[in-house]
């Protein structure tokens, strides 16, 4: 309710005052940089990773603070491009996708090595993916792998339905609801008997690929994976019965059948030979490759994990796959990563060490940076209030981010149930003014502008207070003469719900002022502690408007558009439209990139027409980097692939301003 709930508001204001003063005096005398610009004597980069990592097991945590470290320690099939964040070959030299996007084959490089010298093979990646999906591991980002066939079934602890009589499994297509079957399936006569392959369960993972065997491109498993999708039900009897109640036909069919648990071996991952990895997808996912650099898919060493259990990440035990390996980790203090001489491309890794400092307080970070104790800070570390001082300096890096800020509308109750009210509230915000004030780019759509080249992003409604008033009048908020009457829109019906972190409250106050100025409507702000807020938002326990944002999980517009694929999950608006989902599915079945983008844009237009959200601004990186740090770019994912970063000692080659991002 009150602003005093903000964590350390009082002291940050004082800090701000002190440091702005300090910043002014120093920057004037320091060639336009913020603080010292003496390179460290050794090739050691000091960086901040954020708050203490939950774990440096790349499959456990889900924050950027861990990702920053995991990118140094582990390598995946693909890596982020340092400038564009698009996937580029890493441990996979190249990859093929079949025509209907049901299968992706990765061809691994032959010289990939773990930090203990063991070769990195397709088998290791198969292990990594299966392990990440194991229910007992409870990996937060396991859902990243759900496009892989039976990955979700295995991770959620599902069962197949097996008919001991005919030795076959029940298939999903036989029990689809009519409406879905019409759009989804184009196959002919459904028959369980004609699918002998689907009745052959894989006994164990070891059977699939015997050690040292050279298998051909084809295998029984391969056939099995392309057989029709089996019915998957929850393993827990209570949940299963609930699922069966909803589908009487399926319930009848399961009578007398066996329930066989989905195992790791059922997941559509296959090591065809030592250096060929084949993944079978449950439905087309052209964005799948852009997920591959994600830490969840980075190579792990099976023997180490099996030997040490959860202690495998201790410095004494750990085996890593990236350009750097773990030297030491002093919890809540610092983690030191050291160049791994066994890394396949070690000759091109120029930093000897990276010191990741565990701190998340922006002021402390900027103090350290200024005093020359840090080479760079991560994204969003320069508060908007400091931009007047720091924004013009040569070591300030600002570029668009694959992240957006927007407000949710509660489309289920209250005035915002009416699309005209939602549109009016959106149109009455001068986003350009907001963006200029915060030094960011305004946003009218659901995807960030300029991040996905070639994507024909639709434009949302422009700033138009008069039309907003007309829309509100149409919605019934009128006086006796039929004109819009702001008093009719009761102040208690709509409020902006937000958590106090970052600049959220300043944004909310700006919006509040805009609605007051442009519509005469009074809308109050309600501040809630973060975790309380997330819960209220996701269960639609808010009146009218709630603040939110989204950072891309992978570099594809779908990461933003898929928020509204379901009515639940991260969709905090209650809005859901089958036409929208249908277009998204259609887009993902489309192989041609431009056609696919066009379909995604159509879907985005439907979303903008329904206006369940109020787009505000695009995120910007806003970080500091010393001029002598090269190979580090403020990319859209704001994750730094460390192997290309180095310290340049010749001032003639330093970055005096933003490095070239092309």
């Amino acid at each position, binding site marked *: 309710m009150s602003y005093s709930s903000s964590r350390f508001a009082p002291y940050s204001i004082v800090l701000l005052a002190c440091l702005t003063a300090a910043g002014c005096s120093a920057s004037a005398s320091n060639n336009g940089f913020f603080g010292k610009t003496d390179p460290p004597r050794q090739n050691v980069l000091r960086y901040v990773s954020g708050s203490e990592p939950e774990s440096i097991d790349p499959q456990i945590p889900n924050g950027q603070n861990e990702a920053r470290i995991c990118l140094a320690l582990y390598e995946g099939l693909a890596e982020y491009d340092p400038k564009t964040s698009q996937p580029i070959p890493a441990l996979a030299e190249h990859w093929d996708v079949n025509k209907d996007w049901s299968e992706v084959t990765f061809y691994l490089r032959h010289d990939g090595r773990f930090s203990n010298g063991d070769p990195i093979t397709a088998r290791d990646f198969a292990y990594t993916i299966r392990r990440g999906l194991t229910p*007992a591991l*409870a990996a*937060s980002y396991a859902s990243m792998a759900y496009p892989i066939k039976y990955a979700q079934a295995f991770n959620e602890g599902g069962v197949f339905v097996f008919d001991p009589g005919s030795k076959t499994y029940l298939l999903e297509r036989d029990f689809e609801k009519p409406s879905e079957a019409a759009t989804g399936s184009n196959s002919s006569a459904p028959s369980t008997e004609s699918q002998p392959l689907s009745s052959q369960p894989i006994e164990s993972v070891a059977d699939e690929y015997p050690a040292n065997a050279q298998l051909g491109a084809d295998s029984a498993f391969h056939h099995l994976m392309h057989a029709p999708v089996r019915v998957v039900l929850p393993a827990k009897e209570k949940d299963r019965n609930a699922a069966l109640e909803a589908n009487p036909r399926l319930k009848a069919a399961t009578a007398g059948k066996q329930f066989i648990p989905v195992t790791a071996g059922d997941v559509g991952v296959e090591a065809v030979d030592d250096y060929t990895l084949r993944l079978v997808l449950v439905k087309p996912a052209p964005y799948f490759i852009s997920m591959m650099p994600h830490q969840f898919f980075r190579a792990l060493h099976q023997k180490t994990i099996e030997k040490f259990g959860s202690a495998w990440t201790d410095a004494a035990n750990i085996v890593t796959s990236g350009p750097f390996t773990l030297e030491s980790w002093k919890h809540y203090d610092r983690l030191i990563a050291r160049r791994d001489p066994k890394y396949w491309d070690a000759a091109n890794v120029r930093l000897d060490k990276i010191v990741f400092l565990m701190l998340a307080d922006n002021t402390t970070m900027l103090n350290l940076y200024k005093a020359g104790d840090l080479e760079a800070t991560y994204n969003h570390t320069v508060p908007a209030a400091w931009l007047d001082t720091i924004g013009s300096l040569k070591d300030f890096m600002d570029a668009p981010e694959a992240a957006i800020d927007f407000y949710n509308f509660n489309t289920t109750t209250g005035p915002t149930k009416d699309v005209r009210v939602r549109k009016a509230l959106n149109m009455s915000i001068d986003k350009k003014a907001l963006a200029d004030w915060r030094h960011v780019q305004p946003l009218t759509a659901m995807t960030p502008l300029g991040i996905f080249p070639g994507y024909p992003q639709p434009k949302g409604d422009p700033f138009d207070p008069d039309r907003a008033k007309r829309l509100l009048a149409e919605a019934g908020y009128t006086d006796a003469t039929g004109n819009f009457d702001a008093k009719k829109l009761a102040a208690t019906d709509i409020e902006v719900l937000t958590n106090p972190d970052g600049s959220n409250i300043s944004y909310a106050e700006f919006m509040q002022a805009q609605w007051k100025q442009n519509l005469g409507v009074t809308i109050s702000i309600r501040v809630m502690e973060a975790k309380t807020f*997330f819960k209220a938002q996701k269960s639609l326990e808010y009146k009218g408007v709630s603040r939110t944002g989204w950072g891309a999980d992978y570099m594809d517009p779908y990461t933003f558009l898929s928020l509204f694929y379901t009515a639940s999950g991260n969709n905090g608006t209650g809005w859901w439209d089958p036409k929208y989902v249908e277009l998204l599915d259609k887009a993902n079945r489309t192989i041609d990139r431009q056609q696919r983008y066009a379909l995604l844009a159509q879907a985005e237009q439907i979303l903008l027409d329904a206006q369940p959200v109020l787009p505000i601004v695009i995120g910007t990186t806003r970080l500091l980097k010393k001029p002598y740090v090269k190979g580090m770019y403020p990319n859209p994912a704001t994750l730094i692939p460390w192997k290309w970063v180095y310290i340049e000692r010749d001032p003639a080659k330093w970055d005096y301003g933003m490095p070239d991002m092309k």
Partner: protein
Amino acid sequence: MLRFIIRRIIVIVPMLFIVISLTWALVRLAPGTFYSGEKKLAPGVEKNLREKYGLDQPWYVQYGKVLRNIARFDFGNSLKYEGQSVNQILLRGLPVSAALGLSAYLLALLVGLTTGTLSALKQNSWIDYASMSLSMLGISVPNFILGPLLVLLFSLTLFWFPPALWDGFPSRSLVLPAITLSAIYIAYIARLTRSGMLEVMRSDYIRTARAKGLSETQVVIRHALRGGLLPVVSFSGPALAFLITGTVVVEKVFALPGLGNYFINACFNRDEPLIIGIVAFISIAVLVFNLLVDIAYGFIDPRIRYT
């Protein structure tokens, strides 16, 4: 004396039980969980997490587990930090907090007692006025302001001390946090010492001591200080407990890996075992130090007898 101590120790157990139960209930009542965030997890992933950490069990089972763990001084594993036990985390944070707290405490005693005694002896002199004004400032200026001011002066202008981070004990990184932390305690101790001394200096036994012909130094050190320090002792016992078990703001401002920093993050993270572990630890420390203060009273003030 022994009976007194035993009785006090027995009281610690139910007190601890109440503190733990209240903490547990409050953590449970707070909305959100350790895994909830801006991005909602897939339902299957959430189910796996709840099963992994036993959150799918009924509340009394979970509460029973908490109590059982505490009875064995094993607070279980952190929910947030994979594979790290709360005991490990406590043992890691305690030395940092203790080093900082003890340094600040000794500094506070040294400076506070000296200025307090001087002020009392030279009452209404310029020394008295100067030190009492300064201590008023020390009480009024909160450490989240003092800390950044010191950083601004000594780290970013003079470059004498690092602005943050921990380099072990002893090191230069300790100086600014210790000064920041001790300021308010210096101020309190100075004022308490002054008023205590003033009162004692007027009492009959001091007049007797003087009448015996003792020198002024001996009067002050052997007789006056013992009586004059009583209020300081009752203040500084619990103060020490709080100082060495972690100080949230100073550790946050200087990014020190102490218990206070762990505690504040545990609360934001809803890391229940860690919250309970730290609360239990601080409670025990405060209760024990209070007991020590009561015992110390007996030694300092001959008028106090325990029955």
